[in-house]
């Protein structure tokens, strides 16, 4: 059954929530259930889809983890998950719609390392980055900062430990994660920067391959419109605020 038809029939869309990954997604248990910019984007999509279909649609939540979100999409436990990076290879396994927004990359330095202004400065064998398996940033490092060492780990918490324990020097993350991380655990890090030239990876929404594509096309168009007029930005900023971030800390001139 095509996703579109299923949604039309049931009147429900299942979004995926991650339990604790501020500010991207976190469980609150309030009316919204999950907050953060990921859930915000998903909710807005459903609202706009509801208009398009001309019938009310309810958002349902299914808790997932970074390790299993792909499986949850493929198994049909989740309908839409915004915040994945599209590649040709991945598009063979999942439908991807986007880009929806782009997060600028930043670098957090551990206690024994210091931040540097440009990517070129990081391009030495003395810099070790703790990365999460398969993220687009890892590929960015491999191509654009080839000299740096990479330590690839399963989860974000392990990367943090790697930097804390001195086994790695830096974390490369999306800007909001840097801000959040630095404000949660300032004692662990010496600082963060957005190295120049600014780099960032566009985020797409993942959907099950249903051989139909109506929903994917809808989200594709939705993303293009939202990015064009930057009306995506408030959804993201609201997410940051919900996580308790000081949004004034976001550097000038950052686009999404």
């Amino acid at each position: 059954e095509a996703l579109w038809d299923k949604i039309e029939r049931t009147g429900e869309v299942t979004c995926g929530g991650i339990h604790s990954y501020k500010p991207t997604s976190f469980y609150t248990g309030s009316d919204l259930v999950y907050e953060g910019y990921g859930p915000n984007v998903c909710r807005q999509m459903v609202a706009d889809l509801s208009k398009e279909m001309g019938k009310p649609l309810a958002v349902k939540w299914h808790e997932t983890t970074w390790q299993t979100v792909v499986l949850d999409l493929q198994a049909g436990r989740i309908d839409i998950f915004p915040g994945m990076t599209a590649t040709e290879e991945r598009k063979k396994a999942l439908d991807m719609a986007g880009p929806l927004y782009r997060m600028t990359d930043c670098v957090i330095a551990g206690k024994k390392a210091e931040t540097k202004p440009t990517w070129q400065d990081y391009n030495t064998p003395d810099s070790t980055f703790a990365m999460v398996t398969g993220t687009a940033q890892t590929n960015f490092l491999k191509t654009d900062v080839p000299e740096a060492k990479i330590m690839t780990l399963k989860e974000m918490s392990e990367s943090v430990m790697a930097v804390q324990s001195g086994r790695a020097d830096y974390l490369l993350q999306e800007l909001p994660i840097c801000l959040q991380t630095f404000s949660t655990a300032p004692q662990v890090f010496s600082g963060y920067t957005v190295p120049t030239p600014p780099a960032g990876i566009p985020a797409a929404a993942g959907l099950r391959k249903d051989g139909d594509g109506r929903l994917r096309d809808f989200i594709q168009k939705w993303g293009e419109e939202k990015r064009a007029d930057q009306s995506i930005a408030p959804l993201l900023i609201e997410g940051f605020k919900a996580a308790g971030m000081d949004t004034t800390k976001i550097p000038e001139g950052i686009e999404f």
Partner: protein
Amino acid sequence: MYEFDWSVVMDPQLWLSAVGVTVAYAVVTSIAGLLIGVVLGLALVSRIPVLGWIIRIYIHVFRCTPLLVQIVWFFYALPMITGWTLPDWFAAGLGLTLYMGAFSAEIFRAGVISIEKGQWEASTVLGFSYWTKMRHIILPQATRRMIPPIVSQAILQLKNTSLLSVVAVPDIMYAAGGLTMSTYRPLEVYTFAALLYLVVLTPVTLLANRFELKH
């Protein structure tokens, strides 16, 4: 030097419910696995020809592949292939249950064949049927010998429950992962989680040791 801050783990509500989930999954899947083990163990002992082989293959596959993959299989692959979605809690426990089943079938078989040949012969000579022998003579004796290995396996089972966190079952390790991300204090959090396992398992092992001493 790292400065510890143990205040981050002070969330009794969170841990209590996590321990509850862990223990509940461990107990239920252990019991269900044991039941499977009893049935398969009996089938193995009675040497039914083809069935015996199937069971041996089942045991082998479940013992020799990572439990994580088994859990992923039942949680995701089964519904994808059969189009037939099990309730989450059930799918999550199924892998653990079958894993325990494989190990306990072995324990069960070993327990039964450890009973002296003399007991079998004495009951044969008294004209008991196969099931009478099993039920009244062999099983009552085998059960006592099986308790120590079963307890060891149940302890491993409780620790293995942590793998359920990949399918978002809020057990101790899942809670620890979440808390780590919200506090960036993995050291304190994981150490505390380990302590919880220790607290839950210590009475169980002490009890098991005492049992073992009696024999």
